């Protein structure tokens, strides 16, 4: 039991060293894509945040309505509401990731 634990620990420690992240490339001076990328990133994030807020508002409104109707089921409704909110928010997070790629990784020069 102890030997297999040691072997498992060594195997786990040996594997992750291979997963190296790559450094982002620097942008050359004077290209016009950079400013447009910043503009697009800002607008995209703003639109995503606004629409995400609308969706989350609807979700919370229905959840609170349901909890007021049936106070006994409040705990289960709250769990479902939290899961729903996190899933809606993750769509805005995807837009944030794309905005970060545009700003920091700058794939198009």
């Amino acid at each position, binding site marked *: 039991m102890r030997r297999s634990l040691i072997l498992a620990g060594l195997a786990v*420690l040996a594997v*992750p060293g291979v*997963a*190296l*992240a790559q450094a982002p490339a620097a942008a050359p001076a004077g290209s016009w894509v950079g400013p447009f990328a910043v503009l697009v990133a800002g607008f995209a994030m703003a639109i995503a945040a606004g629409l995400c807020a609308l969706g989350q508002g609807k979700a919370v409104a229905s959840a609170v309505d349901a909890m007021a109707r049936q106070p006994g089921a409040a705990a289960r409704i709250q769990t479902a509401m939290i*899961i729903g909110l996190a899933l809606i928010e993750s769509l805005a997070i*995807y837009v944030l990731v794309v905005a970060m790629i545009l700003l920091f990784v700058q794939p198009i020069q």
Partner: protein
Amino acid sequence: MNVIEHPPIFRLPGIPDHVTYTWAVMAILALAAFIASRHVALVPRGMQNFFEVVLEQFQQLIDDVIGLEGRRFLPLIATLGLFILVANLLGLVPGMYGPTTNLNTTAACALVVFFSYHYIGVRKQGTLTYLKHFMGPVPWWLKPMMFVIELISHLARPLSLTLRLFGNMVGGHILLAIIFFLMGLDGLIGWALSGSPLGVVVGGVGGLVMIVFTVGFLYPLKILVSFLQAFIFVMLTMLYISGAIEEAEHHGGEHHPAHH
């Protein structure tokens, strides 16, 4: 990114930061488990009591979502949940680097979930039955299209798990880094220290407002988001596992999750 990044206080040469701090999270969890299991008693006290409460919460979640037969997956679910929770919280400590702020760590967790739930489904029902359930309850001439749609949605799952955890953590960190940058010697505090009366007024008041805002609102929000994202990751894992298992009960059986 260079202007707002700061290195963690402890670095191993030649090993990337996220690997080093993943080992730190593993060390923390192993230490906690060691302390909890030192004097195992029938009536639990101290660390053993705390961990029994935590694991019982996980078990209740599993009972609610997967049902009684999901209890064998408690080690996978609880390990994922505790690892992601401690990794998220480690990123909030000043001077430490959070492993989940790196795409590699979150992708690793998501890939573990992806291969796990497919393996669990295949082992439960056999490869052919499991693949047949991808095609859903549609007429035979729609089945190929349904298969492609299901395939794409299944491939989107690890991607969404990765990006959700990564984006939530990194978003908070970038916000905090920008506020530190605004506040620092190049920004508000520098303006306050520069001696001009406008600088003292705006820089001082602005700096105070920023400090109160960060300590009072942002940090508690980041702690909440850490817990929430770990919970969401574990919840989605359980939903995927229950989706992989439950196909067998399509034909006439009913699903009775345990209630307490």
